[in-house]
């Protein structure tokens, strides 16, 4: 497992995936307070902008929404080749022949990129928190922001597990990105329409948006559902990998 982790970490650093994710999330974190403080009043004009008073809370909520909508697209197309490219390029052939276990290979990807998807969103959320406090003043406690960041990160780990699963099922990077986005946005739309957000991973985002400094009991249901869904996607991924024919090369 140690070697798989080292390989994934080296790939993340050398391919610039970490930089892409960090730059994109940091851009959103810095842009949102500027948009609400400078651009929005200019666009709306004097009287209308006087009616709308933006706060730090609005700013952080807007950033969290942006990470789901725009950040999701960036994450999907940055990490869409995570498993699909490996299968397309037959680069998993040697580790498989060397007797490496699929669970370890998939687990290493989930661990390395999952850690990244915890560290980067929390770090950029803190940047957004500090920058919005500079522009709007302190209104929200840092504990509420940290809890929201961690909830969002758990949702992003579910997003990553979908990317890994669709990558193995389709073996093509771009369709993997689109299918993952369809899954994430589909769950969000359906759960909003039927009012079942409490029972889906979208419930984590709803809780994150509330910026509540205390963890209430209603959080357990979306948390357990998300963890179960992550386990299911990983199970599907490893089952599919075990059923694959590894002795033939893919069509060029």
């Amino acid at each position, binding site marked *: 497992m140690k070697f798989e982790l080292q390989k994934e970490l080296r790939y993340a650093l050398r391919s610039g995936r970490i930089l892409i994710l960090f730059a994109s999330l940091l851009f959103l974190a810095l842009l949102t307070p500027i948009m609400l403080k400078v651009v929005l009043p200019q666009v709306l004009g004097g009287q209308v902008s006087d009616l709308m008073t933006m706060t730090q809370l609005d700013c952080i909520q807007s950033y969290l929404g942006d990470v789901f909508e725009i950040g999701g697209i960036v994450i999907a197309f940055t990490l869409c080749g995570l498993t699909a490219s490996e299968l397309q390029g037959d680069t998993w052939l040697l580790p498989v022949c060397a007797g490496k276990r699929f669970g370890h290979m998939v687990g290493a990807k989930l661990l390395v990129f999952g850690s990244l998807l915890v560290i980067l969103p929390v770090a950029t959320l803190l940047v957004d928190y500090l*920058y919005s406090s500079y522009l709007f003043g302190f209104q929200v406690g840092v504990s509420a922001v940290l809890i929201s960041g961690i909830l969002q990160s758990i949702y992003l780990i579910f997003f990553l597990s979908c990317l890994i699963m669709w990558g193995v099922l389709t073996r093509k990077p771009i369709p993997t990105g689109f299918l993952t986005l369809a899954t994430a946005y589909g769950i969000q739309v359906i759960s909003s329409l039927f009012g079942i957000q409490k029972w889906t991973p979208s419930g984590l985002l709803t809780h994150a948006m509330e910026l509540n400094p205390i963890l209430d009991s209603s959080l357990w249901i979306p948390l357990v559902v998300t963890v179960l869904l992550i386990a299911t996607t990983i199970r599907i991924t490893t089952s599919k990998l075990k059923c694959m024919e590894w002795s033939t090369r893919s069509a060029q």
Partner: protein
Amino acid sequence: MGTFVLTKDLLMILSPLILLQVSLVVYCGILIFKEGVQNLNRGTWFLICLLVNVIGPVVFLLVGRKEVQ
């Protein structure tokens, strides 16, 4: 819609974004002229990185960077 005047305060507010863009352009510029590119030529990629704010460098890193072997 009000007129947009670039004041010293506004420049201060925008400075983190400008810093992010400049550092990404410098990093991508080094990659473009040192490692090489794919899909488009070096000049076009550098112009994309220079002119398209943040999205340009991100697109270059995703599809324009010469693949690491």
